[in-house]
């Protein structure tokens, strides 16, 4: 951590987005996480993504649980709404907030402990309900904040800093999300912002439940030899299946031919993502073969990264529940209290 506030001065050539903001306008106060924590790089990637998308910060709500990862919303989007909830309970708070105000852009920030250990039940339901949000798991395989106990995503056989071996099967949040019906599922690595930033941008533009599982080394407790979540291990075992280019609506969508091939996925807002394949055979729109591939690579100790599954179905929780089309706080008293005649009508319909 640092005691010094980051100086407001910036590079004279720092670019501005359509709103006139610089990247620096999307920052928060200086992080108090351990120096070198992967989570800080994810914060930087989120800042970059929201800057590039030119999203007005006050249209964003960032919600989190408990953990080092769940602390990070303080360090980015300083001008946005924030809610730091209870351990593992961010999904229900986010679901409620989304139901009350469907107009905000929802960003759920969680850790592997927060989502795969204590919060696994909540995680399952937010995915299967198709809540329109971007769910980012900052996955380091340990409970960083409580000093490095194995979390439920720690790989079997991986070693703790003290030398113990993890004997439990890991939970793969990506596989889980795909089975539970999430419609945008990706994995990134905190050490590769070139890949991560477009993934976050596309996830934010996707309508429905989007999850980005980001492998994020814990420099304090899980960056040693024997760990499968260290900088060195991930770099050595990163199986990148594709890279994304997110293209907003205004840019013409042209399918360029590149080695490995390009696949264009049109998003609900009219923008599109261009999937540049690294692995020729990997098709992120084919759920069954994607799952087979992911499982096979996991068995081989590889970390598959890229856009792993996408289904532009264009429907979310609000569509399924046929809710009112505006935020609840935009409804007038007359709409909220329609009077006894209306009540009588409802009652009559139930008789």
């Amino acid at each position, binding site marked *: *951590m*640092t*005691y*010094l506030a*980051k*100086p*407001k*001065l*910036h*590079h*004279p*050539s*720092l670019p501005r987005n359509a709103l006139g903001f610089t990247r*620096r306008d999307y920052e928060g106060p*200086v992080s108090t996480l*351990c*120096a*070198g*924590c*992967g989570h*800080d*790089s994810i*914060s*930087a990637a989120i800042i970059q993504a929201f800057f590039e998308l030119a999203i007005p910060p006050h249209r964003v709500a960032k919600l989190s649980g408990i953990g080092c990862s769940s602390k990070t919303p303080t360090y980015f989007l300083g001008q946005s709404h924030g809610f730091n909830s209870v351990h593992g309970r961010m999904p229900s708070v986010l679901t409620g907030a989304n139901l009350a105000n469907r107009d905000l852009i929802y960003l759920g920030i969680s850790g592997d402990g927060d989502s795969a250990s204590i919060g696994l039940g909540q995680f399952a339901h937010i995915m299967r309900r198709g809540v329109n949000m971007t769910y980012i798991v900052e996955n380091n395989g340990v409970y960083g904040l409580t000093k490095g106990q194995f979390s439920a995503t720690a790989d079997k056989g991986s070693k703790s800093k003290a030398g113990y071996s993890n004997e439990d099967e890991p939970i793969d949040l990506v596989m889980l999300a795909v089975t539970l019906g999430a419609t945008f599922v990706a994995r990134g690595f*905190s*050490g590769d*912002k070139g890949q991560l930033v477009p993934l976050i941008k596309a996830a934010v533009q996707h309508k429905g439940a989007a999850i980005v599982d980001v492998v994020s*080394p814990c*420099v304090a407790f899980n*960056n040693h030899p024997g760990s499968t979540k260290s*900088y*060195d291990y991930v*770099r050595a075992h990163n199986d990148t299946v594709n890279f994304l280019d997110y293209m907003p609506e205004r840019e013409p969508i042209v399918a360029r031919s590149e080695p490995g091939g390009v696949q264009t996925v049109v998003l609900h807002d009219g923008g599109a993502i261009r999937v540049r394949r690294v692995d020729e055979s990997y098709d992120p729109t084919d759920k069954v073969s994607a799952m087979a591939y992911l499982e096979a690579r996991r068995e081989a100790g590889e970390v598959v990264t890229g856009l792993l599954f996408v289904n532009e179905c264009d429907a979310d929780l609000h569509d399924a529940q046929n809710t009112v089309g505006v935020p609840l706080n935009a409804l007038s008293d007359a709409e909220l209290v329609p009077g006894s005649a209306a009540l009588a009508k409802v009652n009559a319909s139930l008789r």
Partner: protein
Amino acid sequence: MSPTDIANPDYFHKVVDCQWACPAHTPVPEYIRLIAQGRYDDAYLINWKSNVFPGILGRTCDRPCEPACRRTRVEEGSPEHRRASARPEPVAICRLKRAAADMKGDIRERLPRRAAQGNGKRVALVGAGPASLTVARDLAPLGYHCVVFDRDAKAGGMMRTQIPKFRLPDAIIDEEVGYVLDLGIEFRPGVEVGSMRELLAQGFDAVFVGSGAPRGRDLDIPGRREAAKNIHIGIDWLSSVSFGHVGRIGRRVVVLGGGNTAMDCCRSARRLGGEEVHVVVRSGFDEMKASPWEKEDAMHEGIPIHNYLVPKAFVHDGGKLVGITFDKVEARYDAKGRRELVPTGEPEVRFDCDDVLVAVGQENAFPWVERDLGVEFDKWGMPVVDRITMASTRPGVFFGGDAAFGPKNIIWAVAHGHDAAISIDRHCRGEDLRQRPPPTFQLVSQKMGIHEWSYDNAITPERRHRVPLKDTVIALKSIKVEVELGFDAKLAWSEAQRCLNCDVQTVFADKLCIECDACVDICPMDCITFTADGDEPELRTRLHAPAVNLAQDLYVSGALKTGRVMVKDEDVCLHCGLCAERCPTGAWDMKKSYIEMTHAGGTPRVHLPGRAPAPAALAAD
């Protein structure tokens, strides 16, 4: 690119923009930190060692350091400056120097002692300006017997005879020239050296010519001879004012010329009875040679500056000057981009006046140096002088200051003096002049704790502080009242906070880096990039922020684990140390570079690590 060689002192020296730009390479950030700590004596002595005349230069220096100062560049991206549309400005380096001089105590105890014993060598120095005095200061403590000749009664050269007292009071010159003369130098006032042959015949081991550029250019246009009584050559007139021979000037004065001399002339005229003083220059206002602050000072005193007017004739009435006429011109550029001043064809412009001061340039003159002594001169009458050794073509004869390459300024005269002193010392020892002593260089970590550094790494958003001035009404009443009041302790402290500590270097150890990106993410100025290696021009285009300032180096590491390299653009680094604070492995460290020029007779001296060098050690040099 090949990895940066940070063992070469020049690499980090260049990062300290001000020190690199200073002809004498004064360790600027070091003395600014000492001022902030209230250690004025130490701050003064660092200056004194390097530039000999801190109190004088703190008032008058041409300050090449300030245009180089990184502070200006980093403020260009500041949100405050965007809003207030104020120009980003450098740290007031020069005026902080004066603050150290003003607020120091008695430092005489800490100056070098007179040599206990002579070394038997005698050196003649022609002229007692800053160049000669610097040579003498460097050589006398080594045991050289230095004999300084000047036609004037007092030492100081043009610092005393040209620079008006309202910018530089006599007391300051007396003090600092005194420190030099007190080293046991033989000063022979009132002696005009009339023949180099005779001087050489006196058997000196070396001769240094520091005679300046003493002749002011004249303006030969109609009416010059007839109206001569009221037309004065600027530098002659200024020295007459200095000596007290001239105390009045007419009510309406025109000053011709746009250099520093013109600015001193017009401001002096304002104080000696000139009520309507006008400066007229041939070319554009922006092209004037005078420093921007000198123009500001003149205009502040109610002196208009008129441009694009070429003098045509002095108008006189039976030999009595009544005015001067000008042709209006405009700047045109030919195909090669060369500028020409072309008459506009408009009617001539006339200024009525009682006196004219001609300040259109200065020339060198060496009538006293016989041309058959082996001291070669070029076709413009300038001596042939080696830019590094200051040696003429005759062994044992050296030049420096304005005499060497034409009129410059005090700090260049000092720098020449140091270089010449090294050469004279080597010459007298029979050593090769081309071998120059390297500067002392040390690099010491400033780390005290996880986020504690032994320098103040916080960055203040404050703007440059103005030096308080004497009320103009009072200032204009006397030629001697100093206009600038100088910073007081509080202002000096605030201004010192603006210094970025560019000498506290970001030092990278590639073996330790785990490529976690923490430094990239925290850096407020987007200085750091991890990327594939490439050729410099191409690499400069694909960094986090484009590296467009080619005068600033890229710091490139060796290959990292991923095969990439770390590239840091030094251009707008704040030296805030955040990269080092956020680095988990200590791959970045903030290390203070202390670079000091080695003067005559000096062997590189080792300072105590992490501390300001004890300037008292000079005495032991």
